[in-house]
């Protein structure tokens, strides 16, 4: 019985966590539908702040990382491909590795490191300082003022960052292909275009939507769960990172299995 109890406790905890997450998402959606047009200005202001922090401020980091990754991937792969006389597969390789998998995944990892941690810490501090209670008590709906703009802001930002990541990675790959192997831009892009399918676009959009939801609601869940002391804030941040990473990698595996397996 003790063994079964040890086995059951984490399973129950995990199911409770999933239930809490679903509850948070559903309530945010419900309150989003109740938003009045004369509240758009206030919520829009919060949304702009989130897009600026999560999207614009991370643009150079994402672009730089992607440029290097695209270049390194091509350096490593092209020598093997050219040895096999398979230069035509350069586009397939870039699409398979960068656009299909690493683009959304690494963007999500960087957003978790930069923004999910910030959201969890900010909401935790607000909760401890009684700011969330003060908002609710004075008629400012925390789902509409805190959660909805963060979710939408992260969604817009992740989409823009993934597009930026993919573009920069392709640019990095092309630079190496051009400088070292003399590949023309037309040949490179045609090779990429041939390897791309509508399913890749659909998968990327699905990943953007699910990753941004997982990142935001993990951060909100752990941030708003703080009630007692300041020492809970770093713990919440750590839990957010670990839990959001597990969620993003699990979702990525699930999407790959559903769409490509």
């Amino acid at each position, binding site marked *: 019985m003790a063994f079964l109890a040890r086995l059951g406790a984490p399973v129950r905890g995990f199911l409770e966590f999933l239930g809490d997450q679903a509850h948070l998402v559903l309530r945010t959606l419900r309150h989003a539908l109740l938003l009045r047009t004369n509240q758009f200005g206030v919520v829009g202001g919060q949304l702009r702040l989130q897009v600026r922090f999560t999207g614009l401020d991370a643009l150079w980091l994402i672009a730089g990382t992607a440029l290097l990754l695209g270049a390194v991937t091509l350096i490593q792969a092209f020598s093997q491909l050219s040895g096999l006389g398979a230069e035509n597969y350069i586009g397939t390789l870039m699409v398979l590795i960068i656009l299909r998998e690493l683009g959304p995944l690494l963007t999500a990892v960087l957003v978790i490191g930069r923004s999910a941690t910030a959201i969890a810490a900010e909401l935790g501090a*607000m909760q401890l300082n*009684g*700011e969330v209670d*003060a*908002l609710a*008590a004075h*008629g400012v709906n925390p789902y509409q*003022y805190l959660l909805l703009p963060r979710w939408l802001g992260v969604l817009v930002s992740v989409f823009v960052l993934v597009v930026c990541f993919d573009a920069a990675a392709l640019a990095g790959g092309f630079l190496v292909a051009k400088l070292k192997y003399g590949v023309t831009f037309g040949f490179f892009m045609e090779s990429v275009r041939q390897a791309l399918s509508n399913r890749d676009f659909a998968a990327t959009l699905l990943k953007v939507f699910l990753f941004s939801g997982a990142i935001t609601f993990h951060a909100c869940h752990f941030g708003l769960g703080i009630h007692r002391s300041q020492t809970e804030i770093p713990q919440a941040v750590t839990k957010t990172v670990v839990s959001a990473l597990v969620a993003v990698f699990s979702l990525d595996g699930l999407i790959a299995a559903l769409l490509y397996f």
Partner: protein
Amino acid sequence: MLELSGLALDAPDGRRLLEGLDLAVPSGGNHLVTGPSGCGKSRLLRVIAGTERPAAGRVRVGGRDVWPGDGALGLAGRVRVGFAFASGGLLSNLTLRENLALPLRFLGMAPKEVEARVDEAMACLGLEPVASLRPHAVSASARRHGNLARVIALDPELILLDDPLEGLDAADRATALAVIGRWAEDPEKTLLIALEAPGPFAEVAPGRLDLRPLPPVLETP
């Protein structure tokens, strides 16, 4: 305006603070909640405001269910509640002026009206010199006044004040007392003040709820 029936409150450690509390405050009524520190006064105000769930019982504000129900979310946009917290409560990333304006903007008020109300509330409590500063950059008494000014600007039907004079010097106490006195005389405002002893509020609020700690439950071996 306010109805409590069979209300029970628990402390964070699980200890029962209140049991079977019934209270009805009519619209325009003023009530004091007194009792020693730790007896559940602040918690009672938070339960009434809908930011904390009671252990049992029913809370209605302005004819609407707060508990059981959606808490403060059930009152948003329907019944205006103003809450001056004993500590904290102002958003640290907004200036005092923005803190006052936020609930009004969220109500969908026109920008000019928001500005007029905020200016009036700031002037009423002498906060104009620190209006553009964030809460961490102003004195503790300015933060307390900021909480009161937010209530003035919101012009609510139910006003909850948690130890409103705590930490204020003589001049600031006089200013706060004048504001609270005006609320007490207003027949459209219902006032609930929590503090240890009635002190200067004895005449302001005729109704009084004296909370006493419940005796500890002894466990028999």
